[in-house]
C-alpha cells in the first residue's frame, strides 16, 4: 500500500468515525430533548419481557378506565393500555401495527368513543390537534416502514410528518425546559402498564342524555379505520372486543353506541359491549373534576366489569403467578400508596380508598359529617363505616388507613370539616364551591 492510499484510507476512516459519532450524538440529543411521555408510557412494553395477551386501545376514556394491574390482580389477565388523549381509530390502527411487531396479543379491547367523534377535525386528516398526545403515541417507535406509512397517512402537512419521523425537529428548542425527568426518565416509568389513574373527586358528574335506541350512520374515516383494525386482527388471528365505556355522554354518543351492535354481527372476530346503559358508575363518586373521565373509583368499576367479561368469554391464560407481573406489582403498590398519602382533601382520600388494597377506620367528631349525604356516599363507596364520637376531638374526623397488602397501618390522618351545602337531594356542591358562594355573599353584604 503506497503512502497516498494510506492517507486516503485514514481520511475515509476519519469521515466514517465522524459520521458514526455524529449519529450517536444526535440520537442522544434527540432522546434528551424529546418530551418523555412516550418513553415513560411505553418503555416497559418495548423493553420488558412480559408477554401481553390483551391490548387495551382507544381514547383517554380507555386510558383512565381500564387498569391492567387490577385486571391482572383480580382476573390474571396480562394486558397493556395503549389509550391516549383524543386517540382516533386511525391512530389506533398504526399503533396496533407497531405494537404487534413487538408482541402479538390474543385479544384487542378497543374503546369506540372515537369511531364517530374525530372525523374532519384538526389539521391532520384524521387527527385532533393534541400534538403532544400524538407524540406520546408515536415517538418511542423506531423509524420503520410502518411508522413512515403511519405518518404519511395521518398527517397532511409536510412539516408535521418530519416532526414525527425525527422528533428532534419538534423538540430541539426544549433545552430551556429540561428537568429531572428528562435526564432520569427511567426512574419515572409508568408502573400502571400504560394506564393513567385519575385522582380526585368531582361532586356529581353530568347525567347522560336519556338512552334511546336510535341509530346513526357510522360512515366516516375513523369508522373505516376501525374496520381496518378488525380486518388486520382477523389476519393475525386476534380477537377484537369493542367497548363503549361508561362516561357522561351526549345524544350522538348514545346513538353511535347503539349502531355498533350491528357492526359486531358482521365479523367473526369481533364482539361488542355497550357499557353506557349498565349503571356501572356512580355519578357522585366516580368522576374527576373534568366531568368526563373516571377517577380511581370509576376505573376500578369499569376494570372489574371488563375483567369479568373477558374471563367469561375469552380463553386467556392466568398470569397471576408470572414473576414479571409479581415484580411489577411491588412498584404498582408503592405507586398506589404514594397516590393515596399525597391527597389533601377528605373526599379525595375516600376516592382512593375505594381500592380494596386499602381499608380505613373513620371516627367522626362532627355531626354535620354524618348528615353530609355526599360524604356518606363516598364512605359507602369506599366500604367504610364511620363511627360517631360525641366527644370533641382535635379534628372533625380521623382516618386510620391500613395497607391490606402489608397488613400495616399506612397513615393516620385527620381533617377539619369545612362545610357543605345540600341544594337538593340530587345535587351536592363541594366545599370549595360553598366557600366561593359564601365569599360572594359576604362581598354582596
Amino acid at each position, binding site marked *: 500500500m503506497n503512502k497516498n492510499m494510506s492517507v486516503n484510507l485514514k481520511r475515509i476512516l476519519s469521515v466514517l468515525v465522524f459520521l458514526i459519532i455524529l449519529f450517536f450524538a*444526535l440520537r442522544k440529543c434527540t432522546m434528551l430533548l424529546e418530551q418523555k411521555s412516550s418513553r415513560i408510557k411505553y418503555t416497559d412494553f418495548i423493553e420488558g419481557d412480559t408477554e401481553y395477551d390483551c391490548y387495551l386501545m382507544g381514547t383517554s376514556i380507555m386510558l383512565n378506565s381500564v387498569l391492567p394491574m387490577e385486571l391482572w390482580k383480580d382476573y390474571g389477565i396480562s394486558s397493556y393500555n395503549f389509550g391516549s388523549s383524543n386517540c382516533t381509530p386511525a391512530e389506533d390502527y398504526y399503533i396496533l401495527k407497531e405494537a404487534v411487531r413487538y408482541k402479538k396479543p390474543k385479544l384487542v379491547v378497543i374503546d369506540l368513543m372515537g369511531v364517530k367523534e374525530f372525523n374532519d377535525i384538526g389539521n391532520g386528516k384524521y387527527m385532533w390537534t393534541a400534538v403532544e398526545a400524538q407524540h406520546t403515541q408515536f415517538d418511542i417507535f423506531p423509524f420503520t416502514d410502518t411508522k413512515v406509512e403511519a405518518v404519511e397517512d395521518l398527517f397532511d402537512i409536510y412539516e408535521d410528518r418530519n416532526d414525527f419521523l425525527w422528533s428532534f425537529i419538534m423538540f430541539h428548542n426544549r433545552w430551556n425546559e429540561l428537568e429531572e425527568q428528562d435526564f432520569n426518565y427511567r426512574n419515572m416509568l409508568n408502573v400502571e402498564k400504560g394506564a393513567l389513574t385519575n385522582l380526585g373527586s368531582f361532586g356529581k358528574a353530568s347525567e347522560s342524555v336519556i338512552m334511546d335506541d336510535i341509530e346513526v350512520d357510522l360512515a366516516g374515516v375513523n369508522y373505516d379505520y376501525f374496520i381496518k383494525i378488525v380486518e388486520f386482527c382477523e389476519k393475525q388471528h386476534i380477537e377484537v372486543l369493542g367497548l363503549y365505556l361508561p362516561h357522561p355522554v351526549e345524544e350522538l354518543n348514545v346513538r353511535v353506541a347503539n349502531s355498533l351492535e350491528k357492526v359486531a354481527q358482521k365479523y367473526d372476530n369481533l364482539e361488542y359491549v355497550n357499557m353506557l346503559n349498565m349503571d356501572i358508575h356512580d355519578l357522585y363518586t366516580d368522576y374527576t373534576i373534568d366531568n368526563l373521565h373516571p377517577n380511581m373509583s370509576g376505573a376500578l368499576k369499569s376494570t372489574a366489569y371488563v375483567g369479568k367479561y373477558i374471563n367469561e368469554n375469552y380463553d386467556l391464560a392466568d398470569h397471576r403467578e408470572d414473576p414479571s407481573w409479581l415484580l411489577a406489582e411491588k412498584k404498582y403498590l408503592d405507586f398506589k400508596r404514594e397516590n393515596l398519602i399525597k391527597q389533601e382533601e377528605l373526599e379525595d382520600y375516600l376516592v382512593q380508598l375505594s381500592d380494596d388494597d386499602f381499608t380505613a377506620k373513620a371516627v367522626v367528631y362532627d355531626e354535620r359529617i354524618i348528615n353530609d349525604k355526599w360524604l356518606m356516599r363516598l364512605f359507602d363507596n369506599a366500604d367504610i363505616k364511620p363511627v360517631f364520637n360525641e366527644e370533641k376531638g382535635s379534628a372533625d374526623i380521623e382516618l386510620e388507613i391500613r395497607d391490606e397488602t402489608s397488613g400495616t397501618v399506612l397513615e393516620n390522618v385527620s381533617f377539619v370539616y369545612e362545610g357543605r351545602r345540600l341544594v337538593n337531594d340530587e345535587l351536592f356542591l363541594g366545599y370549595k364551591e360553598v366557600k366561593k358562594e359564601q365569599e360572594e355573599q359576604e362581598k354582596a353584604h
Partner: protein
Amino acid sequence: MLFNSLQFIIFFPIVVIVYFIIPKKVRYIWLLISSYYFYMSWNAMYALLLFASTFITYIGALFIDIAQKDSIKKTVMILGCVLNLSILFVYKYAEYTLSLISKLLSNLNISAEVPAFSVLLPVGISFYTLQALGYLIDVYRKDIAVEKNFLKYALFVSFFPQLVAGPIERSGNLLKQLDGNTVFEFDRAREGFFLMLWGYFLKVVLADRIAIYVDKVYSDTNMYGGYYLIIAALLFSIQVYCDFGGYSTIAMGASMILGIKLMDNFNAPFLADSVSSLWRGWHISLTSWFRDYVYIPLGGSRKGKIRKYINIMIIFLTSGLWHGANLTFAIWGGLNGIYEVVGEVLKPVKEKAAKALGINGNNIGNRLVKMVITYSLFSFAAIFFRANSLTVALDVIKSIFTCYNPWILFDGSLYTLGLDSKNFNLMLMCIGLLIFADIQKKKGIKIREVLARQDYWCRIAVMVASICFILMFGIWGSGYDSAGFIYFQF
C-alpha cells in the same frame, strides 16, 4: 432554496460528489445546471431574467472585444450597462418611482392616471446585476480577457453559493476558478465545512434569535419605547451582521469545498474605531465594487477634498438606494456618508485635540470608547434600515430620546419579548463568542486553521459538538418561519 433548509442539506452534498466524480472539462456545466436549479427553486420564471442579464453582458463583452474603435467599445459598454440596469430598475424601482410621480402630480393638483405596477422582486437581482456589470466594465477596461465560452460565463453570473446574496464577485477572481481543474482536497473541504458551520451558527443561532426580540419591538413601537428601542437598535446591527455575514460565510465555505475561493465579505466591522474603518470591513464586496466602478471613475480623492466628499456622499447614497427603493434606505446611506465626511473633516481637529490633551488614541481604553461610539452611530443609522417607513423611523428616534424607562433593563421586562431569560442569556453568550472570534480574526488568527492543526479526534469532537450546538440552540423547525436572509430582499 435557503442555505438553512433541508433541501439545501440534501442538494449540496449531491452537487459536490457529482462535481468531483465527473470529468473536469464538464464540471462547469454541472455547476451551471445546479446553479440554475438552485435559483429556479424560488421562481422558475425569474431564471429568464438571470439569463437575460447574462446574455446581454456576454454579447456586450464580445462586441467590446472585437470592436476596433474605442467609441464603439464605449457605446457598447454603456448600452450593456443601461440595458442591464433597466431590468433592475423595472423590477426594483419602477413601482416606487411611479408612486412618487403619482404623489408629485397629486401635490401639484394635476390629474393624471399613473399606471400601477407591482411585481415580486426577483431574488438576488441586485447582486448578479452588479456582478455582470463589473465583468462588462472589466472587459472594456481590458482588466480581463473576454470569456468566449457562454456556459462558463453563465456560471460566473449564476454560481449558486453567491448568487442570491453575494459576495459580489469580480470576474478577475472568479472566472478563472470555474475551469473545474481543482481536485478534491480533504483539508480544504474540512476548512470549508468549518466555515459553513460558523455561518450556520451566525445565522441560525444568533441572527434568528436576535430577530425574535427585534421583530417584537418593531411590531409595536408605540408600546415598546425608550430602552426597548435602544436595545433593539443595538441588537439589530448585530442581527444584520450575523444574518448577512452568516450567509456570506456559508457561501465561502460551500465554494471552498468545491475548490473555489470567494472574497471575504466582512472583517470584524464592529471592532472598528471609526465609521470609515467599519465600512472597510462591512459588505466588502459591495463597497469595493462601488469604489472600483463608481468612486474611482468619478475622480475618487484625486480632485480635491470637496469633490472627494461629494464622491463619498454619492457612493453612500447609491449604496443606500441599491438596498431598496425607499427613502429610508437613502437616508441610511446618506447618514453613513455624513459620518464618513464629518470624520474626515474632523480628523485633523481630533488629532490636534488629542495631542494637546496628551491622549494616546491607540490605548485600549480610547479605542474601546471609539468602537462603542462607532457602533452606536452605525446602529443609529440602521434604524432607518430596519424601519418600514420614514414615519416609523422618526417615531423610533423620538421615542429613544423622549421615553425614559431604564428600569426595564433590571425588572425582567426584557424577557417578555419572545426571548425568555435563558434564551436572552444564551444570545448574550453567543455575542460574546462572536466578539472573541472577530478579535482573533483582527489579529490574523484563523480559528479554523488552529483547529486544523489539532489531532483528528479533537477536530471530530469540535465538529460534532458544533453541529449538535447549532441544531439544539438554533431557531428552526416547527413554528419557525425560515423566511430567509435579510439580504435576499435586495
